[in-house]
């Protein structure tokens, strides 16, 4: 019997060696292939379940936070501010990935980018054996106060408000309608998330693409800031050229006319043309400048370039290349007043205003202020850096004078933005988008002698009536933001 018993032992060893070999196959040889198998949700879930830090506004309001859950995802991402900050924070969804700050700073929020340190203390050793809290929180430059004000001022109308600090590029507010509640995409109920996403895709106006930096409109007369800069930079003689008083400009190569808004008659030198936003005059300036100069100026202001904002998929603003106008001089005249093929995001127009405000420099726009670790220590702070040298300091000073005249002159189009005691520099825009439809624009900065805030406001698709000009519709919103921001800045020096 002993022989059989020994053979049984041998058989057992054979069976266990087989198990050991199979384990080697699974854990060493075949492990990579199994890990990358499309059915293997572990990597995705591991990434998704990593603890994320909070996202907090500059004035201390929590915009995104993670709440522990008992399910396999471990944490539920919540957005206490709801739709108000969606276009900045974005969303964090198991099914649909991430957008906004959640996407740009994904690795920072989970601490995945923090370097590994050998443990030097008992608590460090403890961290080595545990999934210790590596998450980091983000403080944004965006102010809840201004964001709320922008939402309130838009009063439900489709449109965008962008405010930034021209000296640093820090975005102070960036709000667009339509928006949505990101909580419906971060939910762990996958059916509900899918249904919500379908519904969002169906919203007209593209609610999943933030209007402020991912959608483009004709900038209309706000583009005259760029055209005027081109005059100072490329052909200063045009500054003192007197343009005839017309109600419409007869365009070359065609019988078409470029009409002034509501058939008004205007003309004169650059200062007068800018103050009343004279289309016939600026159309002629465009033709006098030539396509090359206007294109070069637009490009240096950021048209045709993707703004390096720390948010995903920012749209380029467009200006046609110079040779596109060789056989289309009417197009050049229209482009000089921000029509035809010129398109800009609200963010770009805020950057145009900030270029003039900051002596010709466009600082890199950004929403991140600082990164804090789980122990509440500041890990890093955003260092402002210039993006473009749009124009010279001298030109910026000259254009500032033009923009001040828009607000301060009795016949200026931006009188609605006047603030007692504060010099506001601005340009209105009323872009024609079709028969009797206009987009109302306002681009401004203040105070003119020491600019603290640059603002762009857009309210598109308004009926073409006088009260819907940029000066009447969009200017008061910019004024409200400037006032609110400057009063805060004064209160907290």
């Amino acid at each position, binding site marked *: 019997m002993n022989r059989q*018993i020994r053979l049984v032992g041998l058989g057992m060893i054979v069976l266990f060696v087989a198990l050991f070999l199979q384990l080697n196959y699974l854990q060493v040889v075949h492990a990579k292939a*199994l890990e990358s198998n499309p059915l293997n949700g*572990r990597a995705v879930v*591991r990434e998704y*379940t990593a603890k994320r830090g909070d996202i907090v506004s500059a004035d201390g309001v929590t915009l995104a936070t993670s709440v522990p859950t008992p399910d396999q995802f471990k944490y539920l991402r919540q957005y206490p501010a709801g739709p108000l900050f969606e276009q900045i924070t974005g969303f964090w969804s198991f099914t649909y990935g991430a957008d906004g700050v959640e996407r740009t700073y994904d690795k920072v929020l989970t601490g995945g980018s923090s370097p590994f340190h050998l443990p030097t203390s008992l608590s460090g050793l403890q961290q080595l054996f545990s999934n210790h809290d590596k998450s980091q929180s983000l403080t944004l430059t965006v102010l809840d106060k201004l964001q709320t004000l922008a939402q309130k001022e838009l009063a439900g109308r489709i449109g965008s408000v962008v405010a930034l600090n021209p000296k640093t590029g820090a975005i102070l507010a960036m709000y667009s309608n339509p928006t949505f509640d990101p909580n419906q995409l971060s939910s762990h109920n996958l059916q509900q998330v899918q249904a919500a996403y379908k519904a969002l895709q169906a919203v007209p106006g593209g609610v999943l693409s933030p209007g402020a930096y991912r959608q483009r409109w004709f900038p209309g007369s706000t583009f005259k800031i760029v055209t005027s800069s081109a005059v100072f930079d490329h052909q200063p003689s045009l500054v003192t050229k007197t343009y005839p008083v017309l109600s419409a400009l007869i365009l070359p190569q065609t019988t078409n006319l470029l009409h002034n808004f509501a058939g008004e008659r205007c003309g004169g030198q650059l200062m007068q043309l800018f103050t009343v936003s004279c289309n016939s005059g600026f159309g002629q300036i465009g033709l006098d400048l030539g396509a090359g100069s206007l294109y070069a100026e637009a490009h240096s202001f950021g048209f045709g370039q993707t703004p390096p904002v720390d948010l995903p998929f920012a749209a380029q603003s467009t200006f046609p290349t110079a040779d596109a106008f060789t056989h289309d001089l009417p197009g050049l005249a229209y482009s000089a007043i921000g029509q035809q093929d010129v398109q800009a995001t609200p963010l770009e127009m805020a950057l145009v205003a900030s270029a003039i405000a900051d002596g010709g420099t466009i600082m890199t726009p950004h929403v991140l202020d600082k990164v804090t670790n789980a122990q509440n220590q500041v890990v890093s702070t955003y260092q402002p850096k210039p993006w473009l040298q749009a124009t010279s300091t001298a030109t910026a000073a000259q254009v500032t004078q033009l923009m001040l005249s828009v607000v301060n002159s009795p016949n200026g189009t931006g009188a609605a933005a006047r603030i007692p005691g504060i010099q506001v520099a601005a340009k209105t825009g009323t872009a024609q988008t079709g028969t009797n439809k206009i987009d109302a624009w306002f681009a401004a900065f203040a105070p003119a002698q020491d600019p603290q805030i640059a603002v762009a406001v857009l309210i598109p698709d308004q009926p073409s009536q006088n009260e819907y000009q940029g000066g009447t519709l969009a200017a008061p919103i910019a004024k409200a933001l400037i006032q609110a921001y400057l009063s805060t800045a004064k209160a907290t020096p």
Partner: protein
Amino acid sequence: MRRKLAAGGVRRVPARRRTELGLIILAVMLTGGLYALAGLGKAGNLPANIGPFLIIIFALIFAAHFAVRRLAPNADPILLPTAGLLNGIGYVFIARLSNHEARLQAVWTAIGIGCFIGTLLLVRRGRDLERYRYSFAFLGIGLLLLPLVPGIGENINGARLWIHLGSFNFQPGEIAKLALAIFFASIMVERADLLSQGTRRIGRFLVLDPRYLAPILVAWGLSLVIFFAENDLGSSFLFFALFIGMLWVATGRHYYLGLGAGLFAVGSVLALKVIGHTRSRISGWLDPWAHSNTSGYQLIQGWFAIAAGGIFGEGPGQSNAAHIPEASTDLIFAVIADELGLIGAAALLFGYLLMVGTGLRVAVRCERPFEKLLATGLSLIIGVQTFVIVGGVTRLIPLTGITLPFVSYGGSSLIANYILLALLLRLSHDTETLPAPAPIMEAVSA
């Protein structure tokens, strides 16, 4: 010790039991360390109850050790610490998966150790078991068929192998396999000569005498009944393998192995044709990727977990076990392989191999055939059961719902395994005591 020596006939007591105590302390330290690491890994800090935890597991295993000291002082010193370590590792991983199940498992462990002590108390000599062979036969078959009784039987996951009394669930098959092992050992030893000569000459051919074929056919029939009526592939295979293995060891006739394999194949084909539950298990085994959401799901998730472990593992408490179905019972080995890696999983397998090897060594050292065969059978149960579940989880063989001895969550399994352990220790004690050249030894030591 001195007192026991005076009682006479007892050799090597201090050394063996001291070895055992040392190994127990090592096992408790390993378990405590693992518990601390799992707590760190899961919650980021040491478990608050680490102190009471260590005291309780030490108290439980020390109670078992003390019982062995008193009741089977000459028994092998490796089996109890190894079982304790496996039980401890199992508990840590159950606690890491579910606090509720961990509390229950702690109670079951205490009851299991109670049964361990009770078995040592009740069975004073291994050979006494032989006398009750038919009682064990009826007990075993009765327990096996108990889940089929309407009213107390219960279907869980397509298999009918549970009984419930009130809120109390029990898997009687776990105990039945012990009773049947005792019965097989005694009947086979008695009929070994007949069984091994059961050939008859017909013309020029030697054929098996149908009379001696009868028992194997009965066993086969019974395992098929378990198969068909309770849908329990794992227990059925374990039961049949135990029977054939013991028969072969008892008789030394290889044709029993061939016959067993043949009958198992026939039974498998039959089952495959008739039972959907079995069919889906097999298709999930042959091509899990084609059934990734149905019968292959458990297997694939187990594979992913094992693969994620790599060589060194993700660390105790640090994996996301929520992916794994039946994580605390059938697939607990996948969780362990995930978090402890190849190294930890191989160590666990080595622990089982150590138990099986020690059990077989006890069998070799036994003097009487009954004890020899019983020790072999008990060792086979641990070895085959481990192979069936680990092989199932790693896809060497089809995955069946069977527990990993001492590790998986489950009261009946734990109790059965502790009784099995007590029987092995009893047999081990008997063999080390039986030669009893007591007078000479006493004379020498005196």
